[in-house]
């Protein structure tokens, strides 16, 4: 395998210290190749979002290594890093500043990095996620959940990163809106050759988006399998089988 875009080596993250400390992630390892979509699946509290926050540096006290293109990610993370790695948050209702116009939110990275043609870039970013340019002049409370999440994707892509971390990007949305956002993400990945790391508790979403999947429970990655194996139910770990069975039951119940 050539040098992976993103590699996690022996990543451990704990909250608190001593006996009251909780080990949220226990020696996680995975590699994601360039242009690949990698999924992490697990129930709530299994530590999957914590891995993403550690990669971005939002949780800075982790043990282990985060490598981007074979290079150690700087600690604390610097601007070059954020130009390579961006993240879309789970809840679009809390990830946009409630008192700032969408335009101001989208303008921010352009100002920080001193990029030119700002209005054109904002219009382009909005149209890339399927929003009309007039949405720049709205406030978050004037948008629906799906529209907000599209804005959040547009914001993450304004710096033209190569790696996009997706923290359950559709779990806060209606099922009818989920497909729209997922299709936008898929189209963007194909068009730009982006590398995705997607965290979800929904097997169907991950199966739709990703080619390789890691299964997490209680802070540990218990199994890594391809989406074909997942579809064919060739899981080895009992936990993965339970997860697949539970998901199938949910689908049938729908």
């Amino acid at each position, binding site marked *: 395998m050539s040098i992976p875009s993103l590699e996690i080596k022996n990543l451990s993250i704990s909250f608190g210290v001593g006996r009251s400390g909780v080990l949220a992630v226990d020696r996680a390892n995975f590699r994601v190749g360039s242009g690949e979509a990698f999924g992490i699946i697990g129930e709530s509290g299994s530590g999957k979002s914590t891995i993403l926050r550690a990669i*971005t540096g*939002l949780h800075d006290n982790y043990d282990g290594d985060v490598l981007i293109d074979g290079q150690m990610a700087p600690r604390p993370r610097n*601007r070059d890093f*954020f*130009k390579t790695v*961006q*993240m879309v*948050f*789970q*809840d679009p209702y*809390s*990830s*946009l*500043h*409630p*008192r*700032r*116009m969408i*335009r101001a939110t989208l303008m*921010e*990275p352009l100002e*920080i*990095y001193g990029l030119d043609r700002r209005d054109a870039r904002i219009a382009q970013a909005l149209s890339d996620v399927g929003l009309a340019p*007039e949405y*720049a*002049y*709205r*406030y978050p*409370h004037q948008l629906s959940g799906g529209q907000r999440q599209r804005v*959040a994707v547009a*914001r993450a892509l304004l*710096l033209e990163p190569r790696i996009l971390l997706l923290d359950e990007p559709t779990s806060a949305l209606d099922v009818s809106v989920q497909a729209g956002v997922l299709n936008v993400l898929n189209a963007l990945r194909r068009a730009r050759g982006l590398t995705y790391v997607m965290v979800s508790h929904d097997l169907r979403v991950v199966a739709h988006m990703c080619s390789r999947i890691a299964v997490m429970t209680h802070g540990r990655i218990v199994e890594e399998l391809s989406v074909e194996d997942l579809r064919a139910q060739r899981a080895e770990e009992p936990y993965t089988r339970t997860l697949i069975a539970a998901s199938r039951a949910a689908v049938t119940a729908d």
Partner: protein
Amino acid sequence: MDAPATPARESLRDWLQAPTANSPRQARAQVVWRGWLRLISNRAALAGLVVLALLVALAAVGPWLTPYSALGQDLGTRLQPPSALHWLGTDDLGRDILTRILHGARITLMMALLVAAIAGPVGLAVGATAGYLGGWFDIVSMRLVDIFLSFPSLILALAFVAALGPGIENAVIAISLSAWPPIARLARAEALTVRKSDYIAAARLQGASSMRLILKHVMPICLPSVVVRVTLNMAGIILTAAGLGFLGLGAQPPSPEWGAMLASGRQFMLTSWWLAATPGAAIMLVSLSFNLLGDGLRDVLDPRND
């Protein structure tokens, strides 16, 4: 009404009420417009706003409205009760009280606005920074706030004025010094609620510096409650200013400051009630209208009321 004015006004209204904005300016104007509509739909707030607007107008043009001077003495007409010549009577040196009240409005409003302009930004900056950064800055600044808050604000202001020397400028500084800590505490509380929020995290991932995060992300969240708090504090600021004047530590005679007028009228309380009653009523009216406006602003600005 003439014909051309109406379409222009209609189109402005349409522009403000359009369901979607087409420019940043329009979007911002629409936000202000909706806030304004909500503010004036609150009767108490509207009343406070009207009284304050009247008062500002009177303070601006008042001195030209009366034929008398605020400082000129006329011992022949001293202690006159309210009459057609002197609507609010005259004081113990024969000065027209209405004229002095109007002049005093300037002093009072100027002091209140200066204190708000100093204490508001200082409190906001310290509180937002402490709440966002945490760590040693939070500990040091909040212990300082604790020390300030452990004294009654009037006593603290008295102590500062005693140290700085009496006078309006020193009174403004002294009141500001005692007014910023509660605002800082409030701003810190607001900042604490947002420092872990996703939109702050998202901005950090865009490479925003702490300075930028505090100024552009944390402060706008703290601002509404600070504005409300400062407006509600205006009443207290005016009372403190008047209290300092009353005790002879604020504005000095013959300045027509309301507190000082109240103090000099006190000696004649039993024989000439209007000397003390008029500045007292003026203080009450301004404090009340600031309180009403503050309550209305809270309804408009507080996101929890959305």
